[in-house]
């Protein structure tokens, strides 16, 4: 028992000493090579990050790109197979397309609803309400809960006989439908996941947007008043443009987070062939779960995911010129 901790403590001490040594050597040796003292100090200070970047980011990216072109289970050396993994994923993997569809639809549904709702809450809180702090604490609460706790809670709430269905049963009978079994009936998996995600991230986006709203100078609203504009004009021509950089930021983070969604797919058993599961779960499954170690195949899949994230982010950046307003820009 105790040796587990000791082993890690030793590793930790060795790594810390190693980093410290590299920092010290950088600080001492670079000036002798003619580097200015100030520059040498700077390099020494950023050394932990630089080493980490090389070991834990740069090398792994290259390695994973290489693995993605190989057939590699960890027991045999990687064997180069060219584009086979990619071709197999895109044409023959029965799990891939349903999962891509689920992941993207999940993002497309949960992001706009979540952001619009968060902006609404932020605008309510930005009015002169009493106890802004208390409301903010409350609304942010779900975001600090462990993701796993949120998932388990909603799995329970959205069970066929869960609280959600009991509360909404009058509406179901009004619509003439049976109680949905959210996470077992394929038609309801996606809405169920979206409901769960909305509860989880709503508050953090609202808090970020609230901070953005508070930065809007009051005189802009007063100008609209003087011109005789109403609430809609204020929203459309002051609030929205002024908060658009913050919206943009939350949107980008939201896109990345949505594509990376992992935990819900692991706790809620989704059938990857029919309803699809989250891409990240699929990658995990291929690389680590159930005795699988298709490292090459999983690496290829993670590269596809990276390309999707990059494409979506770029697309959002491209459109941002049309709707994101930076105040400093036009002066």
């Amino acid at each position, binding site marked *: 028992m105790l040796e*587990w*901790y000791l*082993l*890690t403590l030793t590793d*930790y001490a060795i*790594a810390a000493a190693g*980093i410290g040594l590299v920092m010290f050597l950088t*600080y001492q040796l670079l000036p002798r090579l003619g580097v200015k003292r*100030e*520059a040498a100090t*700077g390099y*020494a*200070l*950023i050394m932990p*990050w*630089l*080493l*980490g*970047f090389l070991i*834990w980011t740069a090398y*792994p*990216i290259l390695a994973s790109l290489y693995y993605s072109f190989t057939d590699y289970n*960890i027991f045999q050396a990687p064997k180069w197979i060219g584009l086979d993994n990619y071709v197999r994923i895109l044409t023959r993997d029965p799990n891939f397309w349903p999962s891509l569809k689920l992941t993207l639809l999940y993002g497309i549904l949960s992001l706009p609803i979540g952001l619009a709702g968060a902006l609404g809450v932020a605008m*309510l809180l930005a009015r*002169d*309400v009493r106890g802004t702090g208390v*409301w903010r*604490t*409350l*609304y*942010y*609460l*779900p975001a*600090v809960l462990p*993701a*796993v*706790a949120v998932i*388990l*809670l909603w799995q*329970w709430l959205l*069970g066929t006989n869960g*609280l959600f269905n*009991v509360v909404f049963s009058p509406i179901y009978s009004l619509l003439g439908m049976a109680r949905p079994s959210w996470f077992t009936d394929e038609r309801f998996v996606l809405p169920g996941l979206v409901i769960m995600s909305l509860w989880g991230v709503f508050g*953090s986006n609202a808090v970020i947007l609230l*901070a953005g709203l508070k930065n809007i100078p009051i005189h802009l609203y007063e100008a609209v008043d003087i011109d005789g504009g109403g609430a809609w004009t204020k929203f459309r021509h002051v609030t929205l443009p002024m908060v658009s950089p*913050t919206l943009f*930021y939350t949107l980008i983070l939201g896109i*990345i987070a949505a*594509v*990376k969604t*992992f935990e819900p797919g*692991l706790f809620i058993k989704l059938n990857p062939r029919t309803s699809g599961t989250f891409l990240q779960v699929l990658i*995990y499954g291929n690389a*680590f779960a159930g005795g699988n170690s298709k490292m090459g195949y999983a*690496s290829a899949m*993670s*590269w596809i995911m*990276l390309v999707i*994230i990059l494409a979506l*982010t770029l697309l959002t950046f491209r459109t941002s010129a049309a709707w994101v307003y930076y105040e400093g820009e036009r002066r």
Partner: protein
Amino acid sequence: MAVATREQPRILLASTQTQHRIGQIITYLLLLLGAAVILIPLYWMISTSLKAETKLFVLPPQVIPDPIVWRNYIDVWTIQPFTGYFINTIFVTALAMSGEIISCALVAYGFARFRFPGRDVLFILVLATMMLPNIITMIPAFLIWRSLGRIDTFSPLTVGALFAWGPSFIFLLRQFFLTIPREIEEAAIIDGANVIDIFWKIMLPLVKPALLAIAVLSFNGNWNNFMGPLIYLNTPGKYPVILGLYAFAGSLSKEAPKWHYMMAMTVIMSLPILLLYFRAQKYFIEGLTVGGVKG
């Protein structure tokens, strides 16, 4: 709003005041509705955790558990080696947190205060790694740890933190270091202090709010880290709380899931985070909003 009505005639004032009043009422109603949406599930989590197994699916649902079964908490604590899970979680969180904070602070100080060739390019790289999904580096990182013989140990979950693995923390701290006037350091240099002294005794105390914000976020991130332990740990004795919960959820039968136990575990697991949040929520919000607004 009050400012807007100041110059207007009295009659108009009365009607805008009513309008204002109605607006206020609607605002509070909407806020209360939102509060209900957030609090009812949380209440249900606690209430379920105190129910007897036979009362889980009673209709209409029991709002206040009858009887209140405190034993559920003792049961879940003993069904699973929960004490061990907690020790593991605390061990991993403490090591990862301290490594992360110290290394990120050093790096941020370097970026904020010293001129060196390539600094701006490197800093853009820091920001770029913020966008990179960790899945892409996960498999090679796993293979590195495997070749070091460190699978099924806590090392992969903690040692990496020493390499300043939180790019957003570097960013946040750098923003804070930039706001500190240079004269303070210059005075210290004249007095003969060296870099480490200045960093440790002068700069760090000055960015204490940012450090606390990072500490809180880092605690939160490490405490809730799920994928790391899932990939690296196999022996149940080494599990952190979150993995114990996952294992327990997986061991339940579909027919009779013990939701009262699950909710009790969820409460136990969330409690440290919630306590921290209520004590230090200022720092949570500080850390959260800095990227979106100041950046």
